[in-house]
C-alpha cells in the first residue's frame, strides 16, 4: 500500500457531483497532476482537467487540493504523505465539468482595465526606461493568470461580491499600470469605485497561494490603497496640493480614453 496513493477527485458538472476515490501507483517526485493523468489514462478517460505546460508557467491546472487552492502541477504528492488527497475544482468559479471551471469572468473584468496610455511626450517613441523605474512593475509581470488568488479571495469566494470587486489579480494588473512611469491615465477613480479596492481587508490569502510568489498584498494592493488614500482620504495632502505646496503630475482622466481602446476583442 505504501507504493500507492488514495485520491478523491470531484466528478460532476453544474448540475451536481460527487467525490470518486481512486488508487494510483506512486512514482518518485510525483505531482498531483501526474496522478490525475494516470487516472485519465488508465481508468477514467472522461475525467476533465485543464492543463498545458506542467511546469507551473501556464496557470491552467488550478484546483483545490485538500481544500487549499494550488496548481496541480506544483503540488508534490509527498507533501500529503499519510493521507488521502482530495482534489476539487476552484470553488469561486462556476463548474463546467469535473476539475474544469469557467474563469471567463476574470477576462471580462480584465477588459474593463484600460491598457497603458503613454504620456504625450512619449507617444510613438521608444520608451527609454531605467531599471529603478521598472523594478516594481516587473514583479507584477510574473503573473501567470492561474486565478488562484481570485479563487481564495474571501470577498469573491465567501461574499460573492463580484459585482463590486475586481479581485487580487486585477489589482496586480492595475498596479502594474498605475506605477508605470510612462502611463498617463488616472486610474484611482476606477480603483476606488468600480474596482472596489476598499473591499479588500488585507487578509493576504492571495499572497499565500500565489505560485509565482508575487507579494500581491504588500506590493500591489496596499500601495494602491495608499494611492487612493492620497486622493480621497487625506484632507491635509489635498489642501497642500490645492495651495501648491505639493505638486503632483496631472494625468488624464479615465473617461478620456475612447471605448475602443479599452475593449479587448476576443473571438466568440
Amino acid at each position, binding site marked *: 500500500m505504501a507504493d*500507492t496513493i488514495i485520491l*478523491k477527485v*470531484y*466528478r460532476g458538472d453544474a448540475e451536481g*457531483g*460527487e*467525490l*470518486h*476515490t*481512486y*488508487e494510483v*501507483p506512486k512514482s518518485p517526485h510525483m505531482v498531483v497532476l501526474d496522478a490525475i493523468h494516470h487516472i485519465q*489514462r*488508465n*481508468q477514467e478517460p472522461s475525467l476533465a482537467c485543464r492543463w498545458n505546460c506542467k511546469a507551473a508557467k501556464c496557470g491552467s491546472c488550478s484546483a*483545490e487540493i*485538500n*481544500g*487549499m487552492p494550488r496548481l496541480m502541477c506544483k503540488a508534490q504528492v509527498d507533501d500529503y504523505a499519510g*493521507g488521502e488527497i*482530495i482534489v*476539487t*475544482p476552484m*470553488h469561486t468559479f462556476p463548474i463546467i465539468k469535473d476539475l474544469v471551471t469557467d474563469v471567463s469572468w476574470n477576462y471580462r473584468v480584465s477588459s474593463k482595465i484600460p491598457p497603458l496610455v503613454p504620456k504625450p511626450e512619449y507617444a510613438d517613441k521608444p520608451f527609454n526606461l*531605467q531599471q*529603478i*523605474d521598472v523594478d516594481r512593475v516587473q514583479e507584477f509581470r510574473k503573473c501567470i493568470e492561474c486565478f488562484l488568488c481570485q479563487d481564495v479571495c*474571501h*470577498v469573491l*469566494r*465567501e*461574499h*460573492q*461580491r463580484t459585482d463590486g470587486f475586481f479581485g487580487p489579480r486585477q489589482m496586480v494588473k492595475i498596479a502594474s499600470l*498605475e*506605477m*508605470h*512611469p510612462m*502611463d498617463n491615465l488616472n486610474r484611482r477613480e476606477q480603483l476606488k469605485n468600480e474596482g472596489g479596492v*476598499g*473591499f*479588500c*481587508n*488585507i*487578509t493576504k*490569502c492571495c499572497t499565500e*497561494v500565489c505560485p509565482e510568489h508575487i507579494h500581491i*498584498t*504588500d506590493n500591489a494592493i*496596499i*500601495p494602491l*490603497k*495608499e*494611492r*487612493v*488614500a*492620497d486622493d480621497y*482620504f*487625506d484632507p491635509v495632502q489635498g489642501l497642500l496640493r490645492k495651495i501648491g505646496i505639493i505638486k503632483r*503630475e496631472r494625468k488624464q482622466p479615465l473617461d478620456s480614453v475612447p471605448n475602443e481602446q479599452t475593449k479587448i476583442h476576443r473571438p466568440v
Partner: protein
Amino acid sequence: MAIQAQKTTPDKPQPQRATRKDNWWLSPLVFALVFGFFAVWATFRAFQNNYYEVGNYLSPFYAPTIQLSWKIMGFNISPALLILPFPLSFRMTCYYYRKALYRSFAADPVACAVKEPEPLYKLRWKKYTGERVFPFVAMNFHRYAFYAAALFMIMLWIDAIKAFFFEGRLGMGIGSLIFLVNVLLLTLYTFSCHSWRHLIGGGQDCYSCSAMNKTRYGLWAKVSFLNERHGNWAMASLISVLVTDIYVYLLATKVITDIRFF
C-alpha cells in the same frame, strides 16, 4: 509491472469544497491569545493609574509623563487613557494587524479558503462592504496614526536613554536593556509601516526623473526591506511593550529588584 489506477464506488455526494487538513486554526488562535492578553493587561494598567514609574524607568503605557489632576465622579483620570489611543490607533489600523484581527476576532476569513462560521456567514452575506463604509473606512487614515506614532517614538527614545542614567550618572541595569530592546523593536515596527513606505517614495512613478526621486527610491528600497518583516516587528514590539510594562510594574510593587551591571 505498473499498478493500474483502481476506481472504487463513488462516495456519497459532497459539496464542491474540501476542508483543509492542516493546522490552519493555530495562527489565528495564537494571535487571539497574545493580543487578547495584551488588551486585558493594557486596560487593567491604564485604569490602575499607579506603579508605572520607578526611578528612571517609566512604563511605555504612561510615556510621556503627563501630570493630570482631572477627576470624574471622584475617580482620578489616568494619563494612560490620554496616551494609549495614539499607539492603539496605529496598531488597530496597521496593515499587519488588520489581517490578524480580521482573521482572529472577526473570522472574516478565519483562514484562507476556510468557510466562515455559519452564523456569521448568514448574518453577513451580501452585506459585506469591506473597508468602504463606517467604521472600517477609517482604516484609510492609517497615515495619521503613523504620524502620531512617529512623534511618540521620539519620546520613547528619550525614556530609553533616561533608563541608562541613575541619579544623574551613566549606568545599566536589566531594565535599561529591556527599555533599549523595546524602543528598538518599536522603531523597527513604526518605520517599516506600509504608509511610511508609500510616503517616503512608494507614491512616485518615475524614480529616475530627478535627483530627489532617486534619493526617495533609495529610501523606499530600505523601508521595503524592513517592511517585508513588518508582521514580525509588529508582534515582537507588542510583546516587548508588554514585557517592559510588566517589568516596571513588578519593580514598582517590589516583587523584584533591578539588577545593576554598573
